[in-house]
Structure formats: C-alpha cells, structure tokens
C-alpha cells in the first residue's frame, strides 16, 4: 500500500541496537498528511528521538521504509532528503552571524548571493527577527527565544518537504514555550509545511498538533487528535502520560441497565460505566480528576472516600482522597465543594458514566 499524497509515510520502521537485543524503534507505521503537524509524544527512552533521526537520515533503520511525498528516502543521506530539522540544542553555528546561519542551506545549494539575501530577509521577517536589526548579530548576542527563531528560519528558508522538531523549546521557560508553540503552529499553517514535533511535554504537544502519536517502548500506542487521545486513551499508560488520571481496577460486573452498567471495583465500591464498554474482566476504569463531583454527604450512588489533602493551584481545588482499600483518587473543581471538610473526614465522590473509560490492564 502506498500513499502518493502523504507528506510522510513510515512503514514498519525498526531500529535495533546491541545486535537486536534492544529495539529502540519497534515496528512503527505512521503517516503525516500535507500541511499537518503531528506530535510524537512519549517519555524519554521511548524511541521518539531515534525515530526522528531516522526520518532525517541521521540514523539508519534496521528495517522498514520511509517515504516523503511518495519518494522512498530510506537509503538517502541527510543532505539528499530535503527534510528540515530543528534540534533540541538548536545547533546554531557559533562562528556565523544570523544572516550566515540562516543562509547556510542556500549557500550549500549554491544559490546566487542576491537570491540568498532576499530569501533570508523574507524568512527573518516571517520569524519576527527584522533583518536590519538582527542579520549581522552573533549567536552569543541573542536570547534563547531569538536563537530559537534563528534555528527555525534556517530550517524554513530551504523550503523543506517536511520539518522535524526535536523538542526545540525544552530549554525555554513555560510562558515563552507556550507562546512559541502557538506562534510556531501559526507559521507552520501559514506555510502549509508538514511537520513532526517530537516531545515529552503533553501540553506543548496538545497546543501544537493536529494529531498526536503516543509512543512507549519503541511502539506507537495510540494516534489521534489531542482531545481524542486525552478523553479516550487506549490504555493506562496513555491516560497517565497525558495528565492526572484516576485508575480503578474492575473486580466484577454488578448490574447492567440501559445506557450504563454498574461495576464493582476492587476497593468494594460500585461505579457506573458506559454500556458501550465491553467488559471482559481484568480491566480498569479511568477517569479524569476534573470530571469528578465531590460531596460532603452521600448523594446516593457515589463512592465513599477519606479526604487526605486539599490544595489550590492553577485556579482549581485539588482534593486527594483514599478509598477503603487505600486506592488514591484525585478530584478537581473550580468551586470549593468541600469547604469546611478537613483531612481524615469522610467524603463522597462520583463520576458520570459518560466520562469514564474502560481499558485493558
């Protein structure tokens, strides 16, 4: 099967180390549509960097195929692939000023000096580094955010078929990172370049991407748009990686009714889950802390717990609690639903069956 219209297509890509004993990338198949920005999200050591390096040609795949706009580039050298890569370290050349850095790719392609000048000026304007002000600056005179823009400009100016980002914003502080993520996405959409953004930061991934591919132990665990990944995680790993999650192990099915089914969790409490979920046993119920409701009195059908701590952070109240068997739960709300309750006192917590999600162990 072959998609001529895909910006990037990976087919069963593998990379082994230590004579096959370590599979850094273990059978990854992915596509990136033209103009799309796909994040590859995973913890460090999940193989996302190796995957990205193979796409750029800096690492040789053990097996599998890499196609860029239908062209098989698997055996091409990096300079033959027309792929852009913005490094985590940014890799701005310290011995060249901004203009020379940005024009590097064009000089290697032997463009005329006039053409280089005009392209460099255009792209510097695009990344909001006015050429008259920044062209002759040295990297040592620039801030982290400005270096970031230089690295981006240097990559975009060669008009690559695909741009790869290797967590280039990891070193920036939170606020600047959020700002750059939005701006980067705006530029990417403006130019219509397909992009792959590799990161371990789920917030940046969600802000930036059209789709997220979650990786773990060399494999892609789930691919989908950010809300889908967040709300319908394929398993516990995905759920926990994308933010705080409550996890309860299902002990048995208790009762089935129209749109919901009652299950008993290992702590002994009962909980309603969607009737669409197929229950097989050994499964878990996941739900987000923000989708819980907490009560000071039993409203009926809620789980009883003991409050262990309260904090207020980021505009939300956070209540930590424990079920009878010690299973921890987290609830969040903008309102102080438990005003006056102190640690050690009993409370009740419930979650709508629509908001729960059953996954395999």
């Amino acid at each position, binding site marked *: 099967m072959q998609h001529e219209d895909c910006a990037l297509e990976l087919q069963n890509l593998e990379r082994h180390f230590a004579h096959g004993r370590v599979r850094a990338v273990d059978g990854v198949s992915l596509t990136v549509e033209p103009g799309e920005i796909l994040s590859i999200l995973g913890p460090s050591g999940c193989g996302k960097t190796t995957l990205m390096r193979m796409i*750029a*040609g*800096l690492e040789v795949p053990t097996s599998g195929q890499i196609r860029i706009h239908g062209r098989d580039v698997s055996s091409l*050298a*990096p*300079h033959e*692939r*027309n*792929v*852009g*890569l913005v*490094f985590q*370290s940014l*890799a701005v*050349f*310290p*011995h060249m000023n901004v203009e020379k850095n940005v024009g*590097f*790719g064009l*000089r*290697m*392609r032997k463009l005329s000096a006039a053409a280089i000048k005009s392209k460099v000026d255009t792209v510097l304007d695009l990344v909001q580094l006015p050429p008259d002000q920044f062209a002759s600056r*040295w990297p*040592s005179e620039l801030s982290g955010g400005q270096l970031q823009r230089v690295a981006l400009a*240097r*990559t975009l100016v*060669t008009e690559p078929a695909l741009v790869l980002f290797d967590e280039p914003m990891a070193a920036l502080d939170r606020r600047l990172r959020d700002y750059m993520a939005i701006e980067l996405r705006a530029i990417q959409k403006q130019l219509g370049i397909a992009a792959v953004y590799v990161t371990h930061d789920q917030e940046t991934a969600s802000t930036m991407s059209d789709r997220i591919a979650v990786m773990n132990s060399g494999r892609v665990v789930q691919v989908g748009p950010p809300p889908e990944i967040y709300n319908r995680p394929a398993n516990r790993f995905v759920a926990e990686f994308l933010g705080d999650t409550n996890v309860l192990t299902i002990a048995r099915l208790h009762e089935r009714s129209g749109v919901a089914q009652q299950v008993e969790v290992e702590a002994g409490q009962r909980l309603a889950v969607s009737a669409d979920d197929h229950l097989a046993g050994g499964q878990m119920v996941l739900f987000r802390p923000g989708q819980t409701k907490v009560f000071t009195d039993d409203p009926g059908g809620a789980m009883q717990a003991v409050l262990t701590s309260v904090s207020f952070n980021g505009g939300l109240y956070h209540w930590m609690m424990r079920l009878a068997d010690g299973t921890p739960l987290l609830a969040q709300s903008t309102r102080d639903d438990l005003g006056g309750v102190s640690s050690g006192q009993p409370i009740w917590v419930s979650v709508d069956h629509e908001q729960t999600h059953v996954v395999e162990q």
Partner: protein
Amino acid sequence: MNKRMWSSSKMVSSGLPNPVVPAQRPKIKRRPVAWLLLPAGLLIGTLFVCTLTVVRISLGPRYAEWDGWSLSAYAEAADPYFLSIVLNTVWLAVASAILAVLISFPIALFMVRTASNFARRVVLIGIMLPMVISLLVQSFGWVAILGPDGLFNQIAFAITAEPRTFTLLFNSTGVLLGLVQTTIPLAVLPIISSLGGIPVDLEEAASVLGAKRLQTYRHVILPLAAPGIIAGTILVFGFNTGAFVVPLLLGGSRVSTIAVIIRDQMGTLFNWPLGAALSVILIVIALSMQAANRLIGARSQFER
C-alpha cells in the same frame, strides 16, 4: 515528582522552625590567590633574568661582555652564512609545523570520533610516546632507519639490489622527518581538544541543511577547530625553531639550525656576544608567530 515534593517539604522544615537565621549567608572571603603562582613565578622570574642577561651579553664587545656596549655581534650575525642558517631554521620550523598539523588532524579526528575506548587509549599512548622517550634516543632511532645502511636502504636493496638508494641522513629530509615525528604530540593534543568541543549537533545540522561531507568540513568543522589547529601550529613552530638535538644528529654538519650554531659559538668558539645575538634572534622569531596570531585572532574571533 517525588523530587519536587521532597525539596518543598525540605524548604518548609528548614524555613519555619528557625526564624532567627540571619538574612545574610556567611560570606566566604575571597582572598587574593596570587600566592598560588609563587613557585612558578620564582622559576619564570629567574628565566626572565637569564633572558635579560643574554640580551645584555649580545650588546657587549667580545671578551668584555659586561663592561662595554657594542652592536658588533649583530653585525657579525648578519653574515650571509648565519642568515642562511636562520632562514633554514625558519623554513624547517614552518614546514614541520604544517606537516605535523596535517598528520595530526586525522589522528585527532579519529580520537574524537572512535566509539572504541580501547582504540582511543592505544592511539593516545602512541601519540604520547615521543614525549616520554628522550629526543636523543628518538634521533638515534631515526639514524638507524635513515642511514646509508639503515632500514630504508636495506629494504630498497632487497628489492632493487641497488645499494644506498636513498640519501635521507644529513640533509633536510631527514631533519624534517625527525622534527615532524617528535612534535606530533604538540599538534595533536590542542586539535583533539578543539575538535572534541564541537557539538555533534552542529555537524548533523549542516548535513540536514544540505551540506555534503566535504562542505561540512569546510564550513563547519575546520572553522570551529581553527583555534586548536592554530595553537598546534604555533607550538610546533615555536618548539622547532629552537630544535637542537634532532638537527644535530640527523643533519650532521650539513643542516644546521640556529640552536646548533648558538652552541658552537658559546661552547666551542667562546664567541659569547655572537651566540647571545643569535639567541635574541631565535627568541624574536619564536615569539613573532605568537604575536602574529594575536593580531589576526583579535579580529576574527567569534567567541567573545
């Protein structure tokens, strides 16, 4: 997450129960550290006095070095014979510096790039050997290899049955070989340190941006390794302008260097002012390269 919790609880426990902690941390006094330089300072100071003595002697008349003033020694040194030896010394130093750096660059590149620690260690030991074996011993080794009946000529004889094919001893070729071999460590080490300091990312970035292998070397690696290459060149040049043992043994009477004739003037002929004048010329040559680098380097340095 654990770490964060630990550090915040730590902050609370150390901040709360002890409100009388002074707001200012006790300051460690920064004493002047000049006395750390004392032992070296004494030695170098002595060297400075010695050098001044040489300058003084070069400006005195023969046999009355401390009493009068005269430029006759410099006039003598301007003799075409001495000038040719000065030029020859400079030529040997320049040629050996260039060759040593050309040979050292690939070695340094290998040292920086190889994934095998074993290979790196073996090569490093190989490079450092000339520094631990006496120059005299190394030079005699070269004599045994380059001589009329040395290793090279015996191999040539075995192949062509022609005796004494190569004349490598007592000419510039032999001296140059010896000078290059004995100073390779001086060139390799600074190049290793500058190559090792170039992040792999820069090279990979160049490649992804469309630079072919050679373009990457020309536009990224060589410019960034330049400080080490220049340092290696200056070290070898400076060291070989003063070469004595190697030219004495491998050059015989035909290839002389400044250091050899200084010794002749001072030791054999007791012409101290001329020996001293030649010494001053040697010092000026050795320092001129350093000064030239400072002048050029001041303009083109990107590391601020």
